Each structure stands twice: as structure tokens, then as C-alpha cells.
């Protein structure tokens, strides 16, 4: 078991991180999706965080790269819906996992 003091990070658009910051989560705010991806890559390379919450609006343009970064057991990159423009990418991700594993999304019907 491994316990760290600042193990969780949130990366989202400007002004969206207050709740996370107040809960003791490290927050990075950016409106540039490429910058967000760069940050996640750096965090993964440096093993900085075990869980990374990422706004789905920032993840959408680089979804394949994010999926590749999320293939190892740690860090767990979790997409969170954007309150102003929800794209439901995380729900679609689950559907794709079903298709990858079973061949079809049997829960969709």
C-alpha cells in the first residue's frame, strides 16, 4: 500500500477548479486542450499523481492520446463532464469498452 499527500489532480477550464482546490486536490486550469494533454503526459512521466480528473471538453480533441495514457494501471485518468457543455464522452468511453471486450454494447438496448 502506498500513501501520498497530494495524490489527486484536476485539470479543467478556467474557473472550474474551485471545488477541487478547496477539497485539497491539486488543480491546473487551462482552456487549451493541447496544453492539458502536455500536462497529463508530464504528470504521468513524473509519476506525480495517482488519479487525474480531467474535464471532458479538454480531453475530447485528444481522446486517443488520453486513452493511451490511461492504459497502465496508474495513473487513473477519469473524465468529468463539463457543466456548461456536457459531451458525455465518459459514458461513450464505457460503451466503447463494452464493444472492445464483448463485441457489442449489450446494455444500450
Amino acid at each position, binding site marked *: 500500500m502506498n500513501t*501520498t*499527500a497530494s495524490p489527486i489532480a484536476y485539470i479543467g477550464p478556467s474557473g472550474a477548479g474551485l*471545488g477541487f482546490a478547496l477539497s485539497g486536490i491539486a488543480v491546473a486550469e487551462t482552456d487549451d486542450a493541447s496544453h492539458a494533454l502536455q500536462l497529463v503526459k508530464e504528470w504521468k512521466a513524473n509519476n506525480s499523481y495517482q488519479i487525474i480528473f480531467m474535464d471532458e471538453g479538454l480531453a475530447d480533441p485528444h481522446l486517443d492520446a488520453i486513452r493511451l495514457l490511461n*492504459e497502465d*494501471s496508474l495513473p*487513473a485518468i477519469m473524465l468529468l463532464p463539463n457543466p456548461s457543455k456536457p459531451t458525455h464522452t465518459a459514458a461513450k468511453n*464505457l460503451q466503447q469498452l463494452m464493444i472492445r*471486450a*464483448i463485441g457489442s454494447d449489450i*446494455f444500450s438496448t
Partner: protein
Amino acid sequence: MRINPTRMELLRTKKRTQLAKKGHKLLKDKRDGLMREFLKIVRDAKSLRAQVDELLHASLKHFMVAQASMLPEAVAIVREMQPYAISLAVSEKTMLGVTVPQFEVSLETSDEHIGVWETSRELDIALVSFQKLLPLLLQLATVEKTAELLAKEIEITRRRVNALEYVLLPQLQQVTKYIRMKLDEQERAAIMTVMAVKRNIQAER
């Protein structure tokens, strides 16, 4: 086909076929077990995701309203404060040969407190709803990560099962058949030779 049609090779191929059949059965069982676990986890993940999305949406809206109703300076001051310290315990669990992480979070209040006068009521509501949300978020992170890792393992196992079922086993069966045919042919040729020799000897007498 470059195979030595000998009895040794036939025995070796038979052993390989047996091993491949055993491996195929084991991998098939593993795939079925993984699928059962995966379906259970995806079902949990779907309901948890819906719950988290709803709570997060409400909580973030509260924070937005709180930020809008406070002075920008007050927001900046509050942002710098750390009323809670978070610590995460990561352990590993093995599920049918797949190592999956388990997260456990603990939230402790620190000495810093948010002032009542500088902040809005919405901020308190948002903070309370966020604290309720955090354990669910962690639970969802565990469940989604497990689903992701299981899906990857199912894909690998399914490919292995298919490779054994549709490539290796038919190949080995073909090799066995070929060696058997060659050995039978050799046996028939040997009988024919013996019969010809016998006929020649009888003709000479």
C-alpha cells in the same frame, strides 16, 4: 509442409495438440470468468457514472453561483486556502490474473477555515455537496479503471483463444493427419516390397 514424417514427430505433435487443447480450455474459462466480472463492473460503473454526473453537475453549478456572488478578491483568497487535506491509499487487487488498483480516500480538515463574512452561502452548500461527491468519484475511478483493465485483458485472452482454436489446433491436426498418411504410405510400400521379394523368390524356385 516441411515436417519429418516419423513416429517421433507424430508423438511430439500429439503432445503439442493435447497441450494446446488444455490451454484453449483454460483460456476459454478465463475469458468467460473475465466477461462475467466485466459485465458486473460495467453495470456498476454505468449507474455510478449517472449518479456522479448528476451530483457533479449540481455541485459545480453551486460553485459557479458562489464565485459569481463573491468579490473576485474574496474568491482568490478562498482559493489559496486549504480547508481540507486529502490523502489517498492505493492498494492492488488481483482479479483473475489482472492487477487492478483500489483507491481509498480520507479527507481531513486542516487549521485553515473559510471566513463566514467573505464567502457566500452558496459556497458552503457547494462544499458540502462536493464532500459527498468525492468518495463516489473515487469509487467510480476504481470501477472505471477496473473495467478498462479487464476489457484489455478480455481482448488479449479472446485473441489467444481464437489463435489456438482457429490457427494452432487446425494446423497441428493437419500435421498429425499428414504424418499418419505418410507413415501408412511407408507401411504399405514396405508390404508391397516384401510381397514383390516373396514373389521373386517363389518364381526363382
